């Protein structure tokens, strides 16, 4: 009997010794990611803006995380990003080896409680965000020349978009807050076809994101066939401020003040601020699981800090960054908090508004 006890304690001592030895080994290697494979999950098919952004990140993180064995972009497309985000939340270990690269759509699907959503950004921690704004512009055929005309015009305003639950919701909400009637034609394949429809006259008011606006709409503004009205703006410390990519255009808040002479308020406005936080101020975000080991989170944040310092990041990413500065650390956390702390009352209002106005069947 005593013999077994002795043997057990000897075994325990040896195990303890082995553990300290392994611990020392890990400490000696320092970095959590040493020799590990990291995947960047992109909930879109290859080739889109988000995929391009993820591939830019892949090349930059490779340089900033030389210890990692590999960094791969894994595309899990489908269901308007829901499938990839679900897979990240439900099927990936929270070990820091999988990160998710999202666009506004992923947060919106969660806020609106869309069918199939089994994830919640409340369970995640953001490590990098990239702003991406956009501009509402109108065709001169409507007779509208500025924001004051917009709220008083008799012309039929036709807005084109992909879906009322995506980024187009921003444009639609600004009309709701301004109190103007627009006819929403939704179901286009993408914002590119919407821009063509604008040129054809099929629609006459549109919201385009920054890169598309600069590339496609600016020449039309110079020709006089498109008139920019306002940008979606950015949320900074709870305030809507001008879009840094368009310092010359008023934000939606300024436009509202000019048109209505007061500040907007109410659930529509609160919903709008939450949507701007999650879809504009940090349009693209890199997330880790909230219960990732602290050392993994610290290593990833360190690498992220290195990435945003790199000149190559800005050179190679000129097109996709579109002149915006990535946000990290404290400002990013504040932004995420603003988006995630949106009240249930506002969310219910938003879902009811969409259900009534666009005949959707979102669960309220």
């Amino acid at each position: 009997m005593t013999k077994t006890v002795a043997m057990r304690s000897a075994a325990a001592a040896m195990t303890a010794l082995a553990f300290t030895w392994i611990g020392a080994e890990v400490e000696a290697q320092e970095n959590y990611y040493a020799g590990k494979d990291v995947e960047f999950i992109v909930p879109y098919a290859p080739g889109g803006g988000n995929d391009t952004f993820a591939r830019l990140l892949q090349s930059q993180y490779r340089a900033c995380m030389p210890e990692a064995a590999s960094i791969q972009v894994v595309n899990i497309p489908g269901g308007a990003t829901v499938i990839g985000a679900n897979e990240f939340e439900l099927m990936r270990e929270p070990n820091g080896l999988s990160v998710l690269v999202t666009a506004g759509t992923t947060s919106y699907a969660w806020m609106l409680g869309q069918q199939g959503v089994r994830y919640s950004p409340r369970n995640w921690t953001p490590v990098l965000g990239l702003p991406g704004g956009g501009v509402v512009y109108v065709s001169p055929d409507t007779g509208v020349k500025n924001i004051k005309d917009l709220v008083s015009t008799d012309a039929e305003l036709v807005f084109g978009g992909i879906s009322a639950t995506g980024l187009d919701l921003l444009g639609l909400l600004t009309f709701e807050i301004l109190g103007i009637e627009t006819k929403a034609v939704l179901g286009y394949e993408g914002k590119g076809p919407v821009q063509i429809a604008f040129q054809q006259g099929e629609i006459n008011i549109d919201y385009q994101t920054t890169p598309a606006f600069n590339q496609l709409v600016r020449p039309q503004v110079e020709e006089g066939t498109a008139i920019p009205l306002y940008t979606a703006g950015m949320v900074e410390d709870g305030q809507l401020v001008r879009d840094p990519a368009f310092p010359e255009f008023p934000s939606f808040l300024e436009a509202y003040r000019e048109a209505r002479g007061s500040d907007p308020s109410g659930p529509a406005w609160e919903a709008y601020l939450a949507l701007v936080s999650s879809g504009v101020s940090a349009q693209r975000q890199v997330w880790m699981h909230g219960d990732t080991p602290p050392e993994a989170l610290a290593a990833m944040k360190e690498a992220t800090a290195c990435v945003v310092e790199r000149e190559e990041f800005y050179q190679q990413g000129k097109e996709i960054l579109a002149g915006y500065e990535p946000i990290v650390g404290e400002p990013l956390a504040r932004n995420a908090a603003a988006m995630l702390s949106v009240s249930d009352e506002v969310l219910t209002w938003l879902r009811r508004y969409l259900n009534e106005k666009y005949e959707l069947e979102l669960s309220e």
Partner: protein
Amino acid sequence: MFEAAADALFLIAQPDRLGWMVLGCAVGLVVGLLPGLGGTVGMSILLPFVFGMDPYSGVALLIGMAAVIHTGDTFPSILIGVPGSSGSQATIVDGYPLARQGKAAMALGAAFFVSMIGGLFGAVVLFGTLSIARPLVLALGSPELFMLAVFGLSMVGILSTGSPLAGIVSALFGLIVGTIGGAPGVPVYRYTFEWLYLFDGIPLAVLALGLFAVPEMLDLLAQRTQIAQGAKLTGSRLDGIRVALRHKWLIVRSSALGAALGILPGIGGSVIDWIAYGVTKQTVRDNENFGKGDIRGVIGPESANNAKEGGALVPTLIFGIPGSGTTAMLLGGLILLGIQPGPSMVKENLDVTLSIVWTLALANVLGAAACLVCAGWVARASVIPATRLVPFIFVIITVAAYQSTRHWGDIIILLVIGVVGWIMKQAGWPRAPMLIGFVLSLVTERYLHLSMSRYGLDWLLFPSVLAILALIVIALVAGLAPNRLHRKPAGEATLRSDP
């Protein structure tokens, strides 16, 4: 413009850039050759590598690959009756019967030759329409695009002669299967049974493989023969080229059709070969052998599917709107290379655009030449006994289907559709109309929905809509009238590949 084109040739003729193009071609041929894998898979293989390349080299790599997909994909379509990619399904209808008659080398020779001509034609169209395509694309609003989708659907009538009713039922079935998944414009998911895999609908490659490849393999096994009946080969590649040359106007017509349809955004590359097949069948004399091994049924779609790539690049480059799945990913590739497609492609970035034109032309010649060299050798695959060939192909089909979303749902749906396809084949119901219905389902619904929500019913009286409607009526009348005059003795469905 021509001076700039000459300058662009020098840009692309650098040894390292030519090297990238050859590498792209090699990837494109292999991806095309493997059943079910098409341009989108080729793009996802190459995209990770283009990051940080100079634009001309990156373009050489990507376009080199995209240009030859529809050259390489002819091999499986003709030899084993399995679509090499979603753009070469119509080739099966007459190409596979030719292989069964032992004329595989001849069919391949003709197909590669016309692929090359079609590809060159596409490159010329791309060059010629760059500066004038804008008004054409702008003339087509949602109502016109809806009518063009209906035009595509009307091909069903031509493709199912002998049993128009079965063809229509099959097409309607395809339309319904196409509605599985998300609806355009609203976050509503249909027929998904809360299974997340179905939220995005059934992938086209899975449907095409299940519908055409699985039944073919099952029957080959059941008959225990080889593809070439009698196990002997006749005819050579050169015969194929000679035959093709006799139909030069057909090549030109089909190439023009392919390039023109490629330019239209929203129609989708995978119906173009069917439309080309339908139009070929309709516009040639003595078409009673179509479906039983008429070489013209190979020449038509093969010219068109290579020509369409040049056409599909027009809206991709000028408007940033992809005309096909491959160009959708190419768009991403260009952004990775630091080029934002848009009007600047014919101004500041003209040199990149012209290097795309040159790559397209060079790669088509290179790809066709490579395939012609290999064709005689590969054609012998059709004399391998089925019991040895089929298991091998079955593995490839399964792996290819699994590449669609890499979800186990791909395999299940492949088997389900495979059984449906086999039953349809046994019962003599045409399968091509189902595929056309499936491909056009989303497009039809999207543009009908957009037209209705924008214009109410007013769009029905637009002159352009009425013009396309007239075209559809002419196509339908032309398609059905001759059959009534000399009705075929037995009611063979066009797509029954058993001779």
